[in-house]
């Protein structure tokens, strides 16, 4: 019945206009996502003026298309040139890049495409089925819960550095430190800004990310060119990628649900979702697969499926409570309000057709991502046949222009270069970069929410936390994550003695 009803609504609400806007949005999204530094946030901001004169559903189709396409496009750059086009693709890159260097480039990107589609479709179905009911979860997340969740993400730091957990922790703490630069979130006091108003605003994510990964990659390649390659024909590579749906279904489902759940929580976001999902996949490694970080397909699937599922999850509190969980969703919300459509509990009563139209557009977008993504891979593979120096020159140029375009501040370019050199040095010394990014992204979320929790508890943190069941269970989960590996190690050691 629901299916027939939906089909009825679909034909009423969605016409050629909406589909054309959606396809255009997806294409723009994939491209801006793949360009280092540009990203889907800039994409949706720049698209807003073009939505003024469109109907509400068509306007949202364009913006949602960019959001969905953008969260996928980052994986393409991560795999093919070793630079995460978006922060969310940093976890994808851990395994997609080694796969590409080992001659499985098309397979890795196809895996990302399938994962993104799967994550998107699952989150769309959740959105359609239970958005208003699930929105209540978002309200259960106060500062204490958000801080606990950020801490859970931070426990992944040591696990993401392969052979040497200490290096992972060191990089994680470096990320935490870099994130403290700027104004204190609670008192507003300047920290490590040396009197510079530019640093008062804090280190921006784009120059940090593009510098660490993009500029350092160019420098690395100047020394020793590395190429993504395909040993198989495209057909057998994609057959192998598609067969993962049958051979690894649990990973897809688990990652999609993780993504939807993290998406619903305001202020956590896709970066955390992809790393958490990746961390979970690590606990379920198949013995015949390579180690994580050395080209394990499960790593690619976990990260990409989760970060695409976040998109649908994040729309739930935005549409039902008008709480935007991340900056991109905040712009989407602005786009809706420009149309005179007010998100919030009344949306489903006053503008039910718009709400349903958005849900459907989201579902169709997630499905359309598959053919468009596959088409895009073909184009990218052709570009990668160009000489390596010309690709790297292009990457350098796009990194500079992309970073500048975010805030049009020359200082951002200096920062880009500083982080580029830092990234290069760290990679030469075999330090992993991913934990630095997690520390940088999660540090402020943890700090401001933890300190707010202290303020709200009015000096009695311990009894306050006891009244928050979600916080307590997340803290238990953290204890499990930290203690369990230690316990197994101790048990293994004590065995020969027994």
């Amino acid at each position, binding site marked *: 019945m629901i299916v027939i009803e939906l089909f009825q609504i679909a034909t009423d609400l969605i016409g050629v206009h909406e589909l054309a806007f959606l396809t255009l949005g997806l294409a723009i999204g994939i491209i801006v996502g793949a360009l280092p530094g540009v990203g889907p946030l800039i994409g949706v901001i720049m698209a807003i003026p073009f939505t003024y004169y469109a109907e509400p559903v068509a306007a949202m189709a364009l913006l949602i298309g960019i959001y969905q396409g953008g969260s996928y496009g980052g994986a393409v750059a991560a795999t093919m040139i070793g630079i995460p086009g978006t922060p969310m693709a940093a976890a994808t890159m851990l395994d997609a890049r080694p796969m590409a260097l080992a001659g499985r480039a098309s397979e890795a990107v196809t895996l990302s495409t399938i994962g993104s589609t799967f994550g998107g479709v699952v989150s769309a179905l959740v959105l359609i089925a239970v958005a208003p009911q699930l929105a209540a979860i978002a*309200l259960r997340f*106060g500062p204490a819960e958000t801080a606990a969740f950020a801490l859970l993400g931070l426990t992944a730091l040591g696990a993401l550095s392969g052979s040497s957990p200490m290096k992972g922790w060191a990089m994680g703490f470096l990320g935490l430190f870099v994130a403290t630069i700027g104004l204190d979130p609670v008192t507003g006091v300047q920290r490590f800004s040396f009197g510079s108003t530019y640093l008062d605003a804090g280190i921006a994510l784009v120059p940090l990310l593009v510098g660490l990964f993009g500029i350092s990659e160019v420098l690395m390649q100047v020394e020793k060119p590395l190429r993504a390659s395909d040993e198989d024909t495209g057909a057998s590579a994609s057959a192998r990628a598609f067969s993962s749906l049958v051979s690894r279904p649990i990973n897809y489902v688990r990652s999609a649900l993780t993504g939807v759940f993290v998406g619903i929580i305001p*202020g956590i976001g896709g970066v955390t979702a992809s790393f958490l999902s990746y961390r979970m996949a690590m606990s379920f490694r198949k013995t015949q697969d390579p180690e994580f970080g050395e080209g394990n397909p499960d790593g690619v699937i976990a990260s990409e499926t989760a970060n695409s599922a976040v998109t649908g999850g994040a729309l739930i509190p935005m549409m039902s409570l008008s709480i935007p969980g991340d900056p991109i969703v905040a*712009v989407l919300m602005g786009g809706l309000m420009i149309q005179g459509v007010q998100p919030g509990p009344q949306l489903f009563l006053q503008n039910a057709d718009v709400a349903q139209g958005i849900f459907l557009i989201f579902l169709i977008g997630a499905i359309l991502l598959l053919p468009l993504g596959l088409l895009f891979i073909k184009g990218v593979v052709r570009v990668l046949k160009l000489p390596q120096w010309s690709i790297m020159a292009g990457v350098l140029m796009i990194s500079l222009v992309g970073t500048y375009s975010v805030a049009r501040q020359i200082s951002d370019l200096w920062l880009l270069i500083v982080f580029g050199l830092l990234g290069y040095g760290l990679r030469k010394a075999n330090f992993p970069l991913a934990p630095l990014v997690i520390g940088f992204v999660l540090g402020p979320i943890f700090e401001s929410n933890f300190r707010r929790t202290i303020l*709200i508890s009015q000096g009695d943190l311990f009894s306050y936390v006891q009244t928050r069941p979600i916080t307590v269970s997340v803290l238990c989960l953290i204890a499990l994550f930290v203690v369990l590996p230690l316990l197994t190690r101790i048990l293994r050691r004590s065995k020969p003695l027994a």
Partner: protein
Amino acid sequence: MTRMLKTVTLGIAASMAVLFAAPAFADWPDRPITIIYPWPAADPTSVAMRTIGELVSDELGQPVVINNVTGAGGTVALATAISAEADGYTLVSNWVAAQVSARLFNPDLPYSNDDFVAVAGVFAIPFTLTVAANHPANDIAEFIEWAEAQGRTLNFGVCAPQSVPRLIGEQFMTVADIPYNPIPFSGGCGGDNVTGLLNGTLDASVAVVPLINAFGGQIKHLGLLTDERHPIDPDLPSAAEMGYPVGWGGNAFGWGGLAALSGTPDDVVMRLQDAFGAVLTGDALASELEGNVGAMISYIPPGDFQEMWAESEILLAPHVQSILGSGN
């Protein structure tokens, strides 16, 4: 050789011509004007400024570009602006938070009131006392009665740590003699603090009027933290008429406007003041911006606007001192 010399001479002559032609400003403006804007592109005031810019560009015959330079409560925008040429091609949107309150908290910020010349006061946003929709109180008097009955320290959302709404909110709680615990939110007045009201971590918060639409029926405003009512919602009583004067007069607002850089030639400043004044008082803007965005716009002539800077500083200084003294 001679040919090259000729080219070089010609080149020098041409550049000299440009050099000497520039200070005359007779043709001002002959290129686009940039407004450095401190809030994100999706912010409602940013949308309003874009519309104002379009209308002003019709007056001046050159495009007006809005450059969103965000960060650190608007201080980055002002600090970026002072390094530009004082030629009237770079304007900055100066808000009370960045120009007055942030500087009282951090005296080493690189700018002062003297670095700017007023073009127009554009926005005056009154702050509200806001609670969740299911809160028992329906106005300020009932809220104070409720607060006294609680017999505990209230968790009170105050927007950003060094913001004007925080100073006004704390002033109100002091006047009303309610024990409170200020909880700052880095996102300002329209984000996490409202979520805090909805999930019960906050008892009350400072907020702004348009939020009531944004959160459709989930929150309610008890009153304005001002001395008088405001056209943005004429039915909303002010704290003063309920017997709790905040006492800041026209300064009890988040004001924001436009300034040129000191040293800009007088005729250029006057043309800017006239062009923006005409647009801000004209009918075209009123018809383009309806509803809440339109109601936030309140034109203040340049002379009065310039005086407000120093007045606000005198008013806010003791409150900043008391916060700095309390160690919060």
